[in-house]
Structure formats: C-alpha cells, structure tokens
C-alpha cells in the first residue's frame, strides 16, 4: 500500500508540536529561576527522574496518540477527498470522455455532482462539434470527388483559378487543349502552360481577364441573374479561344470574389468554317442579286411590244445565260455545304473498335443471336452519335432476327476516304426491297418503345447515308452506314496522373508575395525539382546537357502528372565512357531539340518556383554557362537536398542521393535518368521538410542560411 505522506505528516505533527510546547514551557521556567532556585529544583526533581520520569513522557505519548488519531480522522474526512476530487477533475479536463467521478465522501457529494454535470455538458459539446466537423469534412471530400469526377468527364476544358490567376484545378480536356496551344518542344506537352499553381496569364492576357472580372463584378453589383461573361482571345500559336468566365463566390451572398472558373473552347476550326460559310452565303447573295437584276431588266425589255426579232433574241439570251449561271453557283455551293452540314449535330469522337464492341453487345442483347466483330480497322476514329447509331443497328438486327430463324451477324468497320463504312452483315436469307425500304425509313421500334427517329434519320444526323448492299454472288447482304471520320486526330491518349493531383484548393489561400520569398514558409512554396544528365563533368571545357528532367511540388504535394522530361541534342559527341552513367546513346539524342530550345521551355516550366536539386550546384553551373547564348536566366532561389540532408543528418558519412533516400525510406527508381533522379530528389525533399521544421527551420530564408553554414557548403564545386 502506498504511504500517504500528507497523512503521516498530519498524524505526527500534533504530537511533535505538543512535545516542543512542553519542552519550551519547562525551558521558560528554567530560564526565569536564579542559581539557588535551579539548584533546589535540581535537587528536588533529580531523584524523581529515575523513578517517575516515564510518567510525563507517557502522558505526552497518550496526548500525541490521541492527537494523531484525531488528525487522521480529520485528514481522511476532509483533505483526502478534495485531493482525489482535484485529481479526477484534472483527468476530466484533459479527456472529456473519462468516466464520471464517484463522490469519495458524502461531504463532497454535491461538489462532485456539480463537476460531473459540467463535464457531461462539455462532453456533449465536444462530441457535437466533432460530429459536425466530421460531417462537414466528409461532405467536402465527397463534393470534391464529385467535382473531380465531373470535370474529368466534361467535354469542355475547365480551369479554376484564384484571383491571382493561379490554377487551382483543371481537367484532362484542358490539358489536351494546352498541349495543342504549346509552342514548346513536344515532349513538354504544354505542361509549362497548365499546372497547379501556374499562372493562367501565360495563355490569356491578364488585361482580358481583368476586364472580364470587372464586367462580372458590375453584373453582380446590378444583381443580374447571369453573371458569367464570355470573350474570344487569340493565342501566340494562332488559336482562337472562346472563354467563358464564371466567378467563384463565397456562400455568403455579398462576399467578394475568391476566384473564377474558365471554360475554354478552341473555336479555331469552327470559326474558320463559320467564316467560310458566311463568305459563301454573302457571295451567293450578291451574285444572285446581280443575276436577278440582269434577268429582270431583260424581261422588262422583252415587254416592249415594238421589239425587233434581233433584240428579242438578245434579251432571251441574257435570261438563259444568267439562269444557267445561277444554277452552277448553287451546285458548287451545295457540294461544299454537305461537308459542313455534318458538323451541326453534336457528335462524339469514338474509337471504331469501341463502337463495334458496344454495338455487338447491344445487338446480342436485343436478338439473342451471336454477333461477330470482324474486320474493324484499328486506330480508326469516327464521329458518331453512338447511342442513336447503336439503337439503329439493334433495330435492324431485331427485324432480321424476326425474319430469319437461323441468322448470324457480323460487324465490319473500315475507313473509306474522309468517311467510314460501318456494315451490319447477316447470313440466312434475302429481304425484299420494299421491306428494306420500310425498315430504313419507318420509325424504329425498340422493345415496346417507338422511337421518333428512323434508321435513315440516324444516318442523316451523321451527315451520312445508309443503304442495303448485296455482295454479288457471295450470298450475304449487309446494311452499310456511311459515317464521318473524326476530323482531328485525338491527342494520343497521354497517361494522365491520378485525378487528385489535378486539384489543389489550398492554393485559394495562397497569397502573392513573390518578392519576399525568404519569409515564406517552406511548406507554402512551389518547387521545381530537377536533374540533368551531361556528357561529362566540366561545362567550361565543352561538356553539354543531354537530358533535363523535372517534377513540381505545390503546397507540399508532389505532382507526378506535371513533369518535364526532355532529351537534348548536345551538338557534340557523347563520350563512350559516360554512357554507363546516363544510358543515353548518340542515336537517342539525334533529332531532339537543342539546348537553345529546351532551356526557354524549362524556364517557363520552372517559372515562379524555387529550384531544387541534389548537388544542384553542378546542374546550375551548366545552366549559368548557357545564360549568355540562350538569354535565359534562372534567378529564382535554389535549394540543394545534399546540403539540407547534411543539416538534418550532420553525422552521416554519405550524402549521396541513394544513401539519403535509403535513410528516409524513399524507394529509388530509374536512377541516373534525369526524370527518375528528379522524382527521387523530390520525394527526399518532401521527407526532409518536416525534419527541418523540427530544427526550427521553417522558412526559405532559414533553409538557405542553414544550407550555407552546413559543412558541405564550405566545399566549393
């Protein structure tokens, strides 16, 4: 059992005090006596000590015992319960979910009850708050996922920006669009234009956005229902973009804008087509007016009764000639227009194999007969209203299955000039021409539903045709749909990063203060982590960069989807001895862009970010030496993971990238390729950041100062 020191003290103390009191009383008496009296008392009491000395001592001991007993009772009754209550209350204070306090004694029962009531109330409050927070964050996460999914599926390019023009969110379409707009070498794929935290002003003039925002704010101020505004802008690469700008407003009604959503449409082709059509229409109108004027005037002349036969013939000639000219003009226009017509109905681009597979499934389901997908051209993109088309195919399949007991279907899809042939082939018998015509032009019956469309309508919706064709002598016949090919090659499906990296709403909170980067927390900055492979170690004596790789870190997130990976033609030989280090053979860099093209692109990629590299001084030396010839200057702050690692692990022997990665638990992949090393360095950097924080290094300025004073900094490269 634990000894309660307070209790022991409380029990011992009264006896002790009593003893001191008695001794002090005796001493006081002794001091007041003169020598004779002391001698008399000594003589009188001295012999008694031997015989009766124990009596006063026992008397005292009884008193001390009684006092100890009383003190113990008092202590247990009044001091201990308060201490226990205090301790229990403290526990409750730290953990609202701790059990309720049991009253140690009846005396403190009311107090305990009051404390418990308070604690209950607090627990309810805390739980309520937690529940609300959990619900809210679940709601936010759900909304974010829904938004991400929605944006990924949208056919339009969507970019969400904060007021400073930094991108917070974009979808795959926007990525493809920016890839087309990019003038940088292909491998960069527009990633210098689109990226979380990048400025939209690289694509759209800042003044235009500012003007659009003003318009929006005016409309909001007037209380208009639609505040979205639209404008058209040209890009350096000669594209025309139709931009819709919608404001992002806080839920409270009168709040100021926090950003905006941009919907971007590349209308270059539409616009060209529209202009051509308008031009044709105008030309036709004017030419027709002129012709009609000639015809009318000639007819007016023919009305004169006194006209000679020669004049009469002349005016008839005019009429004939002009009528023929008008006919020709219309024929020419018609030929041009039919190509345009097919763009009216919104068709979607689809891979032929996907369409065939979907159609086959649907026909099988509708007829219960096997459908073979034969001869579908690979990589054929067509423009279709897939739903209506598959419906038409199923309808025809159903009719055929009803007509013949034993029929098998085959689907065939192949390119033919600017169009594609989609054939539904069947075996088992012939159908009369009247029946076929009825199937083609009558309304479609799907299940119990009567569609307003006919098979022919569906073909016409595609600006195409449908007809029945017999393979002569071979027996089976087929329906052939003439469909438009996708007019533009779709961007080769670029591997897109997992969706979540596309958005980062934390940037809404990011503020613009690029000047005072040194005071900015390390976790808030955007970084470009890069690495280069070179022909050798000495740029001064002619070694060149042959590969540049980089990834971005924004708001503490590594954006794998936004990477830079470019081989560079060094304009010189690659020493055989260096090949084992980087694995880049001379034929790999042949035809690649020169450093003069790559550095400006990389500069754009790294704009407004802090550069990070491992042993970055080496890479920077190559970049610096190119400043004069390329005119590209890298003036942003630079951090070196080698130096930072030696700040957080000063006692480690090796600060090689592998060693650091090993210590920090980062898996090393594709070592000695620029992009692979950049990725590893970025992961290492992200692991080092919190370790720096533990050492109180939380701003860029502090990190740079620490790097400089670290041991390795004193070694100059």
């Amino acid at each position, binding site marked *: 059992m634990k000894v309660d020191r307070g209790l022991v003290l409380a029990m011992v103390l009264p006896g002790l005090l009593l003893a001191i009191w008695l001794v002090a009383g005796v001493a006081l008496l002794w001091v007041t006596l003169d020598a004779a009296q002391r001698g008399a008392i000594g003589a009188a009491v001295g012999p008694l000590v031997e015989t009766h000395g124990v009596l006063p001592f026992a008397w005292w001991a009884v008193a001390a015992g009684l006092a100890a007993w009383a003190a113990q009772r008092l202590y247990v009754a009044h001091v201990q319960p308060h201490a226990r209550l205090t301790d229990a209350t403290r526990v409750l204070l730290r953990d609202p979910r701790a059990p309720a306090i049991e009253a140690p004694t009846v005396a403190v029962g009311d107090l305990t009850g009051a404390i418990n009531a308070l604690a209950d109330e607090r627990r309810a409050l805390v739980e309520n708050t937690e529940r609300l927070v959990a619900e809210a964050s679940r709601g936010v996460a759900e909304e974010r996922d829904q938004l991400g999914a929605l944006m990924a599926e949208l056919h339009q390019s969507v970019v969400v920006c904060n007021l400073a023009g930094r991108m917070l969110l974009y979808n795959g379409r926007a990525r493809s669009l920016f890839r087309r707009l990019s003038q940088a070498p292909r491998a960069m794929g527009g990633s210098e234009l689109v990226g979380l935290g990048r400025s939209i002003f690289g694509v759209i003039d800042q003044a235009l956005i500012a003007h659009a925002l003003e318009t929006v704010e005016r409309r909001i101020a007037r209380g208009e229902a639609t505040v979205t505004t639209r404008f058209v802008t040209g890009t350096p690469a000669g594209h025309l973009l139709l931009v819709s700008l919608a404001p992002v407003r806080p839920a409270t009604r009168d709040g100021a804008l926090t950003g905006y959503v941009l919907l971007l449409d590349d209308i270059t082709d539409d616009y060209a087509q529209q202009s051509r059509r308008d031009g044709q229409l105008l030309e036709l109108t004017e030419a*027709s007016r002129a012709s*009609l*004027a*000639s*015809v*009318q*005037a000639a007819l007016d*002349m023919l009305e004169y009764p006194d006209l000679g036969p020669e004049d009469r013939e002349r005016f008839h000639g005019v009429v004939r000639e002009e009528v023929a000219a008008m006919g020709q003009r219309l024929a020419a226009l018609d030929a041009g227009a039919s190509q345009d017509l097919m763009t009216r109905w919104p068709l979607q681009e689809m891979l032929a194999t996907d369409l065939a597979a979907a159609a086959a499934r649907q026909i099988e389901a509708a007829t219960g007969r096997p459908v073979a997908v034969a001869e579908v051209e690979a990589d054929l993109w067509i423009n279709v209203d897939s739903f209506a088309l598959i419906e038409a195919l199923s309808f025809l399949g159903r009719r055929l299955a009803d007509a013949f007991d034993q029929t098998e279907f085959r689907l065939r899809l192949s390119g033919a000039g600017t169009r594609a042939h989609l054939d539904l082939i069947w075996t088992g018998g012939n159908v009369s021409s009247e029946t076929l015509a009825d199937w083609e032009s009558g309304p479609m019956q799907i299940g119990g539903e009567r569609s307003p469309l006919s098979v022919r309508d569906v073909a016409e919706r595609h600006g195409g045709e449908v007809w029945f064709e017999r393979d002569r002598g071979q027996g089976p016949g087929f329906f052939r749909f003439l469909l438009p090919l996708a007019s533009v090659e779709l961007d080769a499906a670029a591997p897109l990063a997992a969706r979540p990296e596309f958005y980062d709403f934390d940037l809404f909170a990011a503020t613009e203060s690029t000047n005072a980067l040194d005071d900015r927390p390390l976790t808030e900055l955007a970084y470009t982590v890069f690495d280069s492979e070179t022909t050798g170690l000495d740029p001064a004596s002619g070694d060149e960069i042959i590969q540049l790789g980089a990834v971005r870190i924004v708001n503490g997130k590594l954006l794998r989807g936004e990477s830079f990976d470019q081989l560079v033609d060094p304009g010189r030989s690659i020493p055989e001895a260096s090949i084992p280090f980087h694995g880049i053979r001379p034929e790999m860099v042949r035809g690649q862009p020169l450093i003069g093209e790559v550095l400006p692109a990389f500069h754009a990629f790294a704009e407004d970010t802090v550069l990070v590299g491992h042993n970055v001084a080496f890479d920077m030396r190559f970049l610096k030496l190119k400043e004069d010839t390329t005119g590209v200057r890298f003036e942003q702050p630079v951090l070196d993971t080698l130096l930072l690692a030696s700040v957080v692990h000063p006692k480690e022997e090796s600060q090689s990238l592998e060693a650091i990665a090993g210590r920090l638990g980062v898996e090393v992949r594709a070592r000695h390729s620029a992009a692979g090393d950049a990725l590893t360095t970025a992961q290492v950097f992200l692991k080092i950041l919190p370790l720096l924080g533990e050492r109180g290094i939380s701003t860029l300025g502090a990190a740079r100062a620490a790097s400089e004073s670290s041991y390795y900094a004193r070694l100059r490269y």
Partner: protein
Amino acid sequence: MKVLIADDEPNIVISLEFMMKREGYEVIVARDGKQALDAIRRERPALVLLDAMMPEMTGFDVCAAVRSDETVRDTRILMLTAKGRETDLARGAGVGVDAYMTKPFSTRDLVAKVKELLA
C-alpha cells in the same frame, strides 16, 4: 443629255443601254471603275448609273473621286448594287451618291428615278 452606264456585267448593260436609248438619252458605257472615271471627266455625262463592285476601282471609290474633282463634282450619281446591307447603303450615302438602288430592281422604277434626278 448624256448618261454613263458603268458596270462590269455585260448582261445588265445590254438592257440598261437599250432602255436609256429608248428614253432618248445619249448612252456611254464603261466596263470598270477606271474607265468610268475617265469617261466622266472626258464626256461630262449628266448622270452615271454606277455599279458598286467593279474591277480596278469600286463604285464607291469612283464616286468619292468625282465628288472631290471640282470639274465634275455636280454629276448625278445613281448607284446600283448587289450589296443590300445597311452598312453598304451608309457607305454609299457617305461618299455622296444621289440615289441608291439594290439589285434586282424594276426598270420602270429606275427610269422614274433617273428622270427625277435629271429634272
């Protein structure tokens, strides 16, 4: 009285020439804008039936040149055009045409307009 017909479409010129002659005017024909301006300066017609769109010089340019040339400034100009848009009408008025007729037109209206301008 002399009337100049300036149009690059021979099929309308045939009818206009025939009609103007029947109405008793002396008719001169020009096939493009330059010829028209030369003919105006040389022949001093009282009125020009001027097509708006011609090779070499457009009717608008011819009209502007006539109005800025003191010797022929008072020539009456009736512009005939296949351009029916408001903007074209405004441009015609701007360069100083006296009247404007959009093709196609009735020759009876045209004759009436010519007579009115020459009255």
